[in-house]
């Protein structure tokens, strides 16, 4: 069953009176429970695709269907509701509210949301459970400047998961992390995916992409190809090798 689909999606920017077609008639379907990686050269439109299909950015034409609705037709408030309750976001830069502790940053969307009619105490318990699961419970009361990048990104994952979203969008979630932190973050994202969360992720890293179930390759605003592992139970190293071979064929 498709959780999100894009039909003839176009995005055009006008810069200095010059038209720049960033996305050109993109058609895309993502099934529930999938973990889709989006790859491509710099400036190919990867992040723009992620922002357009998540409703964070306006599309120029086409449609994006999520939850049986064309989200390009939704109002700003309806889109906010959607992002708050049904979508989660993780960015390369680990943005958080600088005056709040890590725990409060994670708790914030839950307090703002009216999706679940549970008490503040229960919301707190849920946030702590998420932190425990992601291995960052010990930094709950820390300020954002007191923790490492990997911990902060895991806190961002926890924040994105607090309202049990149907889908998680990640824009280069490991882009600013070292190898060890990258691995930890990806382990957590894979665990979430195993538990049923759909994930769409932009990445430059083939190692990271190799952990996805499907990889889309974007070139010049269009999906130039897509790769799906024939056998998902392959060793990670083997997956990386296969993907690298495919990527080289794509001109990576």
């Amino acid at each position, binding site marked *: 069953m498709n959780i999100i689909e894009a039909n003839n999606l176009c995005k055009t920017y006008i810069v200095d009176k010059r038209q720049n077609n960033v996305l050109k008639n993109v058609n895309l379907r993502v099934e529930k429970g999938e973990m889709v990686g989006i790859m491509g050269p710099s400036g190919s439109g990867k992040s723009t695709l992620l*922002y357009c299909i998540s409703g964070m950015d306006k599309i120029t034409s086409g449609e994006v269907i999520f939850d049986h609705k064309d989200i390009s037709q939704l109002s700003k408030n309806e889109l906010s509701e959607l992002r708050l309750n049904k979508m989660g976001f993780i960015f390369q830069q680990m943005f958080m509210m600088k005056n709040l502790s890590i725990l409060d940053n994670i708790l*914030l969307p839950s307090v703002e949301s009216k999706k679940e009619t549970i008490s*503040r105490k229960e919301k707190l318990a849920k946030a702590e459970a998420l932190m425990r699961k992601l291995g960052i419970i010990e930094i709950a009361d820390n300020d954002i400047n007191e923790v490492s990048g990997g911990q902060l990104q895991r806190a961002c994952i926890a924040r994105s998961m607090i309202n049990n979203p149907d889908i998680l969008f990640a824009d280069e979630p490991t882009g600013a992390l070292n190898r060890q932190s990258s691995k930890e973050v990806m382990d957590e994202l894979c665990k979430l995916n195993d538990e049923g969360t759909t994930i769409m992720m932009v990445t430059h890293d083939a190692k990271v992409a190799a952990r996805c179930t499907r990889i889309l390759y974007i070139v010049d605003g269009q999906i130039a190809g897509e790769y799906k592992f024939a056998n998902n139970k392959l060793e990670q190293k083997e997956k990386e090798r296969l993907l690298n071979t495919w990527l080289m064929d794509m001109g990576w």
Partner: protein
Amino acid sequence: MFLRILKKDIKRKKTMNIIMLVFIILASMFVASGLNNVITIANGTNYFFDQAGLGDYIAARKGSGSSTEAFDDILPTIGEIKSYRVDEVIFATKETVETEKGEQAKFDNTMLIQSLEDSGLNYFDINDKVATIVPEGHFYSSYRFAKDNNLKSGDKMIVKSNDVRLNLTFDGTLKDALFGSDMLNNVRLFLSRTDYTNLRDNGVSEPGMIGEFAYIDTDDVAAVDVALTKKCPTLMLNRPRATIESAYFMNMVLAFVTLILSVCLIIVSFVILRFTITFTITEEYREIGVMKAIGIRDIKIKSLYLTKYLVIAVLGSLIGFGVSFPFSKLLLGSVTKMMVLGNGLGIIPNIIGSLLVVLSILGFAYLATGVVKKATPVDAIRKGQTGERFKKKSKLKLSKSRINSITFMACNDVLSNKKKYIAVASVFALCTAFVLVMTNTVNTMKGDGLIDSFSARSDLYYTDQDKQMSFMHEGGNEEIKEYMTKVENDLTDMGMPGHIFVDAQYIFKITSNDNEYSISCQQGIGSTIDMYTFTQGTAPQNMYEIAITPTISSKINAHIGDTVTVDYGTGPVQTTVTAYYQTMNWMGEVIRIHESAPTNLKNCTSWMAFQINFTDHPSANTIKERKQKLIEYLGGKEVQLPNEYQADCIGVVPTMETVQISLLAITLVVVTLVVVLMERSFIIDEKNEIAILKAVGFKDRRIILYHMIRFGIATLVAVIFAGAISIPLTYATIGPIFLSMGMSTMKFIIDPLSVFVMYPLIILAAALLIAFITSLITKTIKSSDTASIE
């Protein structure tokens, strides 16, 4: 190379640089005009009096310059007098002056008509130039007279007395140092010498309608006072310059409000400048780090930023300097209508003010760029806007709180950035406190709580100058009693039985401790002494007992129980001081004498209003109805309720109301400026946070509300604090002013609704509204901006 970096920097950070420029323009404008105003106001009345030639001692007498005992005969015989100037005037009543339509002119007290060409005192036109001539058939007037009669240049007025009828054209207003205050508010008409001589020679039937004012220069005021008291029996006013100065207190309150406001604005400017510079330099930390990392020397980096701020500071200060002149004029506008204010320094204070702003900016910038020298490249990069910080930020715990997310974030932000919000709240509190102090003052003046300090409390008051002047002769005492009996009978016939009485004022020779003084004495006609309020001792019971004010007590060095000699005009009488009382009549320089004291109305110098006490104890509404009936009975003469009469006696209520409204308006302007500029800075600083909030699903209106609540908290704290200190502040600031006017014990009327509810709510609502409008700009920040944040 550096110039190119500088140019790029100014362009790239356009919004922040523009905000900075706006701050500097405002700071320069406030500081330059504020400094000028401070010096001008500090000079205050002295400058005005010196320019006008008011002298050190002012005396007035009945009788013309050609009569015996004229000032020109007496003053040269007093050795202590160095020089003097004399104005001859005609005392006129409302019947003397009318409009073209035949309506009576409006003014309080006696009018003085004089020849401008023969003036002893200097009178100033609207441009503060001394007016020396008025063409025949034209006239100038005091500002108050023109205002009350709505006169514009070219309007006609008729001055008539006996056979003389002068059709005069109004040429403008003149500033009068002696009667320019709200407390001494006689009005003057200035005619040509020809018109004045015609009026004096052919229109004046009674010698008492002419008088002289002398402005005396002396180093020994006390000696002149004693000598003049001895030599001039027709003296009707004798006051040292200091008394006239104290009459300007209320006008100077307005000037001091301007001064306080200027100081306030200067503080606001520097607080905000400090904040803005620190904030903008924090933004530069990363760049500073990068420059250090590539090996640029500290001094070069510092000079780059200092040059940038110097360019902005010089540009802003120059604009601010230019705008400071009209702004200064605007601030002092209401005071300078009746006073000549100035200083001999010209534009120097403005130049110093603007230079001060430039230097302060460079100083702040120099301190803020201290990081260039102290920090290593890595430190600077890490300290950058999006980098690391080493100070605990979070103060509250959302997990432990019950309030909603945006209110929580707003509270937490305020607590996490205390310095910033305390600066905002302090500025708001200061402005609000002044509004509330003025509200308390105006409410007190508009009520009837001070009526006792003018005369006894009554149901109604009315003034009939012509009638009162007609009693000022030998035998007047009998006539006034007959008149009052007739009025009482008429009132009874009209179904409103009442008792009528009036206070007459005299100047009598007083001898205390072997020193002679001429002092105003107040005596009730038709009243009994127990109707007046005394603060200490027992009311005088006969002509041998008097009550004095604390001001007189210290002037003549007499206290309760002491013996003082009073000459009621019939020879010296030994009296005992039996009580103290307080009054604002003549700034407290008055003695109350018993109704049985042997006075004669031929010596009367001035009057209070006729007072009516109804004997059938009518309700407030009935009194209001009777007021209308009385107006009809008196042929349209002004009849006043106690609060109206009190306001009339104080004279400055409209001025103070203007001050109150001006202060509120200025507070709202300050609130607007601070909120707009701070909120714009906050939005720039928090752009990534706003974007992330949107990305996680916060709606625009919630983010706007979040920003509003922060200013709401700061303003709420400010107005609560201002409300709390407003009452003691009123007593501390306005109390001494009333004290100098004769009120030794002062009780202010506090209206809780206006002080604790209405004005705080107006200021809070304004802050929220401005924060709302300014924070609408957060709508332009999109959730997808998270991708483009550095």
